[in-house]
């Protein structure tokens, strides 16, 4: 039986889909059987970021309505043999699927796959409830901005009420020079407020945008710093103790980061 992990944030545009795509791919590269589920019905993106848009035949709503069987709707990624995607419908909206149906679909997928990565839409309405319904764990994505952190806090409060366990935090798009100048919240401030476990800090990296446009997850590039960060998150999910990457060549920050993982 696999594990369902929902990737959520509350606020839009902080990198849920990017994180889902890269985390799913990174887990697949590490030898896990992974299925990614896009629950953003009406505004699907995960297929675009993964470069699988042109292969969609059936989608999540078709499966929920019984128009096709679940395996028929899954798109196998040809680049990674153990990676699959269940795309969202583009012509319906969030109410086309119920939390019970989502739970049923994710439970079915968990029998087949080690990890089911559920990409959650922005907001706290039906789309959120659908995405959370089948999840065993949650990853909350935020950026070092006040508004994003505020929404992450709200989402953590909502997740606590669901049966989903203690969520893990990804801080995305950190710009080291802005943090250094005090123009951006630093990791410590965010952790102090949200009080949940940190599982990764992803630096702001142009390569992420470039690769998303090419339909190729950033983790496929071994040079990019964001790619290393995503792969480390995947390794930590598998239980490895991987120290945080330095955001830049600066001992002070590195040591502070390590402190959060109890390595120092």
């Amino acid at each position: 039986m696999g594990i369902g992990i929902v990737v959520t944030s509350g606020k839009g545009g902080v990198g849920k889909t990017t994180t889902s795509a890269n985390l799913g791919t990174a887990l697949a590269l590490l030898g896990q059987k992974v299925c990614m589920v896009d629950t953003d019905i009406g505004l699907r993106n995960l297929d675009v970021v993964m470069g699988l848009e042109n292969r969609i035949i059936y989608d999540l709503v078709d499966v929920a309505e019984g128009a096709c069987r679940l395996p028929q709707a899954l798109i196998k990624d040809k680049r990674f043999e153990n990676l699959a995607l269940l795309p969202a419908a583009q012509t319906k909206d969030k109410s086309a699927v119920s939390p019970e149906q989502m739970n049923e679909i994710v439970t079915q997928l968990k029998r087949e796959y080690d990890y089911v990565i559920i990409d959650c839409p922005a907001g706290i309405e039906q789309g959120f409830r659908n995405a959370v319904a089948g999840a065993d764990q949650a990853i909350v994505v935020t950026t070092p901005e006040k508004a994003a952190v505020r929404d992450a806090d709200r989402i953590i409060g909502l997740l606590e009420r669901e049966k989903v366990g203690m969520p893990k935090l990804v801080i995305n798009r950190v710009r080291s020079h802005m943090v250094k100048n005090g123009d951006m919240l630093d990791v410590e401030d965010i952790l102090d407020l949200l009080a949940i476990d940190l599982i990764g800090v992803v630096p702001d990296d142009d390569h992420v945008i470039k690769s998303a446009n090419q339909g190729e997850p950033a983790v496929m590039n071994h040079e990019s710093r964001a790619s290393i960060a995503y792969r480390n998150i995947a390794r930590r999910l598998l239980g490895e103790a991987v120290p945080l990457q330095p955001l830049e060549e600066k001992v002070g920050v590195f040591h502070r980061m390590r402190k959060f993982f109890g390595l120092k």
Partner: protein
Amino acid sequence: MVSVEVKQVTTVKSKVTIKGTKEGLVFFMDDACSFDELLADLREKIEHSHQQILSGPLIRVSIKLGKRYCTPEQQEQLTQIIRQKGNLVIHTVEADVITREEALAERLKTQFSVKVNTVRSGQVLEYDGDLLLLGDVNPGGIVRSTGNIYVLGHLRGYAHAGISGDSQVIIAAAVMSPTQLRIADVISKPGEEWTTNSGGTEFAYLENDTMLVAKMNYLPRIRPELGEQRL
């Protein structure tokens, strides 16, 4: 015939007993007779029999109802009769009994509750009585209570103490940096009337309808009665 009448007078026990004390007069109301009998006897005493002692300079009057429950209207009836005498000033009306609702409200007021959790954005923690929160209140989180609020953590959100109008309550926090504070119906945000300074434990209170924040060691001077409220 005559003897019978005398007997009647002696068996009818007085319903209203008036006693003089240093503080003024105390009216003890019998609690076993009917309310109408009580009214009749009081009227008799005020208007006729006790004219002499009840006249003169201003006198403070306390009414003791014993174990009789009087509605506010009934209390008004009693005080109205006494007020006929211009020199009698009603000070207190006391009974040894209260209704179940009043008892419950009283109990809730003195109740003390301990909560252990982080109040996150969009969450509301509301309580009757004093509240001790072991955890943070994050921005966008709300804590409301009819009594005092003590936060043993970081208060970054919004706290409202005395929501039913009690202006004597305080809001204390180990780290005080709220978005907004309210006590009774006074609303205040940091940087207006007050700023937090020390980073140590501080508390907010009302003085002349203005919110002030002080360090915890000023509490015994500002609200000494806080420790004595509970039995």
